């Protein structure tokens, strides 16, 4: 592979740890059969790995639950990615005449499913954040109405890196008696999450970012007391004579054969981050983000959008450069300097409108655990040179 400086970890973390790739290959080579579909030992082994992964993730997302008050692992449901998981949540909780509260920080993985519900007769409120991108929980409370059936919020912004105060938003939802769904695409595996303590009813996650699994993995962790309808139907491998889809979890939200190799990799990814420590990885990333932010801020014509705080933040930074289209800066960084970033609206148009960066968006840098101080210095040097060569 060519020498690259990969600073697009918010899109997907890269590279993946060798342990993840090894686990996927080995598991699929030795046990690559359809889990639960036959009584053969290979299938039982595959099912054990799947169920073991459900247990691990249920515990990971609910660290505060006391021993003996464990989480039902069957309510950890796998999906192809966070978007599919969020579709399960929105479609399974909201109907015509219902009201949804969400925010302008959201990714299209929330905006579009919610807007489709509005097209079918639901109502939605998109709460604006403050100038830095943080949502005031009191504004969520104000937006909740009698017919509000769901509050759905982005935990960490894929544009500016702001991390919302889920404990406070969860308290508001608890008081109002409305279930809280969270899009943790940028935070699962990056920021410690405690569903039970924060009153999160549905936690949608993707596998290929902070959890270091492969693409095509993710899911939703459903709180034991949360209500949700199934909206996908088909094969489950059990009770085949039943003419309708099964109501019990995980089948209620899963249909068809699971991504066995992907889930084996996801399981190995969780082992990898737990071995290193979520807090340690995050501290490394935020340390580098601070250096990157400081270096870029000194470049004439460069503007940082959103917060510059390093607390309540994931290691993502959005900037624009005067007289440059963000896409052009991204192209020059990639082709001339071997630095990969993400440009444009990053599938989150409302937050760009909020920060005044629509329609062309920003240049987004996002740091991962394999980045180094040299990578950050290279990025600052490159942007400095590009800025100095600014078109009229």
């Amino acid at each position, binding site marked *: 592979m060519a020498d690259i400086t990969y600073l697009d970890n918010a899109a997907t973390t890269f590279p993946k740890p060798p342990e993840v790739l090894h686990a996927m290959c080995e598991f699929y080579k030795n046990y690559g059969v359809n889990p639960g579909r036959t009584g053969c030992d290979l299938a039982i082994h595959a099912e054990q790995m799947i169920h073991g992964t459900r247990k691990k993730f249920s515990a990971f997302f609910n660290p505060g639950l006391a021993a003996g008050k464990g989480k039902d692992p069957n309510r950890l449901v796998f999906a192809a990615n966070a978007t599919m998981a969020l579709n399960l949540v929105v479609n399974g909780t909201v109907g015509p005449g219902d009201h949804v509260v969400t925010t302008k920080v959201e990714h299209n993985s929330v905006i579009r499913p919610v807007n489709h519900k509005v097209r079918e007769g639901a109502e939605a409120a998109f709460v604006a954040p403050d100038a830095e991108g943080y949502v005031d929980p009191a504004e969520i409370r104000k937006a909740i109405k009698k017919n509000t059936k769901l509050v759905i919020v982005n935990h960490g912004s894929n544009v500016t890196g702001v991390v919302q105060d889920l404990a406070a938003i969860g308290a508001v939802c608890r008081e109002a008696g409305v279930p809280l769904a969270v899009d943790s695409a940028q935070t699962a595996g990056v920021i410690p999450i405690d569903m039970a303590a924060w009153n999160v009813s549905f936690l949608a996650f993707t596998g290929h970012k902070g959890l270091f699994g492969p693409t095509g993995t993710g899911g939703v962790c459903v709180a034991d007391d949360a209500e949700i309808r199934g909206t996908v139907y088909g094969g489950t491998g059990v009770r085949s004579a039943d003419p309708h889809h099964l109501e019990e979890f995980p089948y209620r939200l899963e249909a068809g054969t699971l991504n066995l190799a992907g889930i084996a990799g996801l399981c190995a990814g969780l082992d990898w981050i737990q071995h290193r420590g979520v807090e340690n990885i995050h501290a490394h990333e935020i340390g580098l983000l601070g250096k990157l932010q400081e270096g870029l801020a000194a470049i004439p014509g460069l503007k940082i959008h959103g917060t510059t705080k390093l607390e309540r933040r994931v290691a993502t930074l959005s900037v624009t450069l005067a007289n440059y*289209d963000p*896409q*052009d800066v991204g*192209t*020059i960084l990639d082709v*001339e300097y071997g630095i990969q970033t993400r*440009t444009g609206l990053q599938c989150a148009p409302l937050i760009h409108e909020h920060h005044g960066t629509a*329609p062309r968006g920003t240049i987004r840098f996002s740091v991962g655990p394999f980045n180094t101080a040299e990578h950050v210095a290279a990025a600052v040097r490159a942007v400095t040179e590009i800025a100095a060569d600014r*078109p009229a």
Partner: protein
Amino acid sequence: MRVGELEVNFDPDGFMADPAAWNDAVARAIAAEEGIAELSDDHWRIVNFIRAYWKEHDLAPPVRLLCQELGMSVRQIYKLFASGPARGACRVAGLPKPDGCV
């Protein structure tokens, strides 16, 4: 846009609605819109490479490949097409809007 007898239509982003309707005269007309008074040999090398690659792959070429194959730096391409390889050069080459997260 009318080019001779031909009515050329564009999508909302300014890319040709029907790439099959492209010809050299259309390229010159789009180039004029891009602020390029006359397409030089270097412009045509870029346009023809992009067009040929798109016909074979149904995609715009990676910018790095474009630079390698034509022996140009990305900054040279920006000097020729101020709005860049993915927008200006692809527009002049008559491609549909390339994929990208905008």
